[in-house]
């Protein structure tokens, strides 16, 4: 009986480029910027890396298809590189590949790299793209904010909450992320905002205003992983280990049946349940020290608090009001600013979240360091609430 990957793989080095509108950088520069930091951090020789996974979403508009963007940028010694793509869960998918390879014993040291160069596309938001030759014939040409805005309409209707009240809770989420982002030198958006500014921002897709939307950024993040045994041999004492990485894609229930009411993220619930089982977590609200969740839009973060079982169903608004997810709250969320302010270079985001967990667990998060965190959770939602790939990962500390 398989036991999963809990405590089998250690992260021995991580890097993350500065996120933002990196007009001065192409994907190659971003990859190298993140990799240099991770390699130095790990202390290994670059030739010790045996396999690599590259996460990249918009291949044509960003860096190109296949293994080549990574292999070429780093001049890797012809080691196997697999390019993966699972929409906004792409970075986590790259990490999953590297972690699984190490856990399987296929190699000792693997690299997971996520990168996205969005600001060469010419769009302020995410670029337009085809949904496939059949879906283009009938699916609306929805934007990401429009797709996620529907969560808010369904959530408000289900819980009978006036939209103004929901908007205020969403504004609190954005204010909190901006406050956190201001402390992060690598973050895209580093300006604090007020609740009123969030509420009065221009409407993008009702009821989401501009301040409910995350940054569209360039960036790269990466991790070097090895087995716990190998890390021990390397003399690493306190090591960050992977406790769970779970993935749950939609199967059509949300879009093609009435079994889903549109107010929550079905796949996040499935992935969370599996991740908690893999990581051995039974009381998430008590056991999880901190989280980086997929706050592409404020409403996403709000419903995810319930989908992860941190808040009771219908209870996220109260928890938000009570400051549960603020820096000094019970379960701080988006300590690095989140997608909202650190930014969202799609292929890099999952690894950027892991990077924050890694720094926090090792006590290296500088101005934004939390007090003795032990368990960190990351969450991605690739796609739209009605058709997506969700990932939930859990990271912890293990003494050698």
């Amino acid at each position, binding site marked *: 009986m398989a036991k999963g990957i809990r405590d089998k793989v250690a992260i021995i080095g991580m890097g993350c480029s500065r996120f933002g509108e990196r007009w001065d950088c192409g994907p190659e520069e971003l990859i190298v910027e993140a990799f240099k930091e991770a390699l130095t951090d790990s202390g290994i020789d670059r030739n010790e890396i045996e396999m690599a996974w590259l996460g990249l979403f918009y291949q044509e508009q960003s860096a190109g298809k296949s293994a080549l963007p990574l292999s070429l940028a780093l001049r890797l010694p012809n080691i196997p590189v697999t390019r993966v793509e699972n929409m906004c869960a792409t970075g986590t998918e790259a990490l999953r590949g590297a972690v699984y390879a190490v856990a399987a014993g296929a190699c000792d040291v693997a690299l997971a790299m996520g990168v996205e160069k969005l600001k060469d596309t010419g769009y302020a938001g995410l670029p337009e793209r085809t949904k496939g030759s059949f879906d283009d014939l009938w699916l609306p040409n929805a934007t990401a*904010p429009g797709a996620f805005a529907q969560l808010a309409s369904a959530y408000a209707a289900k819980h009978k909450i006036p939209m103004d009240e929901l908007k205020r809770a969403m504004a609190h989420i954005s204010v909190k992320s901006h406050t956190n982002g201001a402390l992060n030198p690598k973050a895209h958006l580093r300006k604090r905002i007020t609740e009123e500014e969030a509420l009065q921002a221009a409407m993008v897709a009702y009821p989401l205003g501009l301040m409910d939307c995350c940054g569209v950024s360039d960036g790269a993040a990466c991790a070097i992983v090895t087995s716990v045994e190998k890390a021990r041999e390397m003399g690493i004492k306190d090591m960050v280990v992977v406790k769970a990485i779970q993935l749950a894609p939609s199967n059509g229930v949300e879009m093609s049946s009435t079994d889903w009411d*549109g107010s929550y993220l079905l796949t996040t619930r499935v992935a969370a349940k599996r991740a908690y089982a893999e990581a051995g977590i039974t009381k998430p609200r008590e056991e999880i020290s901190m989280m980086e969740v997929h706050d592409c839009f404020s409403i996403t973060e709000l419903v995810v608090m319930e989908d992860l079982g941190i808040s009771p169903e219908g209870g996220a608004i109260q928890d938000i009001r009570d400051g549960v997810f603020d820096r000094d709250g019970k379960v701080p969320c988006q300590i690095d600013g989140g997608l909202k302010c650190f930014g969202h270079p799609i292929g890099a985001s999952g690894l950027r979240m892991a990077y924050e967990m890694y720094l926090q667990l090792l006590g290296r998060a500088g101005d934004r360091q939390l007090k003795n965190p032990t368990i960190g959770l990351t969450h991605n939602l690739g796609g739209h609430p009605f058709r997506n790939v969700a990932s939930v990962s859990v990271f912890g500390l293990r003494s050698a």
Partner: protein
Amino acid sequence: MNYGILSFGGYVPTLRLAREAIAEAVGWAVPSIKGLAKGERAVANWDEDSITMAVEAARDCLQGLTCQVDHLQLASTTLPFSDRSNSGVVADALLLPEDVATEDLAGTRRAATSALVRLGRNANAAQTTLLLASDCRETKPGSTQEMQYGHGAAAVLLGPGDPIAVIRGTASVHQDLVDQYRAADSDFDYALEERWVREEGYLKIVPAAIRKAAQAAGIDLGEIHRFVLPAPAGVAKALAKELKVGAELFADPLTAVCGDTGAAHPLLVLAHALATAVPGEKILVVGFGQGADAVILETTARLAALQPQRGPARYLQQRRPFKNYTMFLSLRNQLDIDFGLRAERDNRTSQSAFYRRRRDITGMAGGRCSSCGTLQFPSSLVCVKCGATDTQEAESLSGLIGRVKSYTEDWLAYTPLPPYIYGHVEYQDGANIMLEFTDFAPGQVGVGLPVRMVFRIKDFDTRRHFRRYFWKPAPLLSETP
């Protein structure tokens, strides 16, 4: 079994431009049009054309009936495709079987009335014909036509059975009096002097056709109860005088609320008249343009069974008035607003993919699982509910009333009439689809709102001059009082 009109229908788009908005915008250049600035004209939404309007008129006509259609005719001077069966698209949208004979009728404003004459002369036919007329004529800014035209469609179902009206007599006269014309390579009509058209056209050619039709029917003009003779107000008055009949017998030409809908107009006014007619009424229908068609009908006792929820009245009631002239121009593709990068998306249609799934797209056919009964769109090989494989049978959702589950008004996405409203809609038996909405103004959609489906243009492929169609949720029609 008698041959005759079995049913009728009409359609007028919800958007209505106040004519005074036209005068305000272009009166500086053409002061004379200020005199026409009364009432409003119907304007097709950006996603409507002669095909979609014909589909809606046909649905109005066919509602509640179970008869078989053998022959579909679509009459229009503004068919969106010069070579692609326009009536074929309509037939698929109406879920008509593959062996229905489809026919596009074009080239004249009389296309529909001429078809009616032909059908009336072949009154022993065993075939049922759905005659559709639809027009979406573009007009030059500042022109009289911009004031006078409107967009709309109408339908008449003819065949053997229990008719609501029988055809008593017909006449058709050809006279090449070029009152107006549109060259094949031109976007707009070129109209000649109105007084000449009245004196030599309406007052000479039309009476001749009418008298011939009356002769064929064996009746005196004095026996006719209603004249469906859409013409400018002054012309109608002069015609009544010429024919020695009361001007009050002329059916409301829908000038104030809709405008002249071209090839569709005689049938649209007829459909409007039939909705309030009584049994035993003799109705004269006239089509004019390089000659005239005249058809004399007589209503039967069966008529009451089909009234009153048929014809353009319900659509005329469903108004979305506006006064923004630049919005009108933009909707009619005459003002190139900079909608930004998102409007540059390439909407190429994969025709092979469309052909494989054409019934899903044009007919909104989903699949019903024969194992668990769940309805789903699009149909799939594996049931979303019970997982059974290869159990789904095609079933259209186009006639269902849905309920809004979630929605948004998207100001970022490109649409010719922002905001882009879309959301999830639930239907009976477990079906749920995310769809683009149409004909809703901002603030009008809410969770739980019931919606009906309408056939519309989904996207334009401006590079390849193609347009693709699909179904969209729209406001329910209010019942006529």
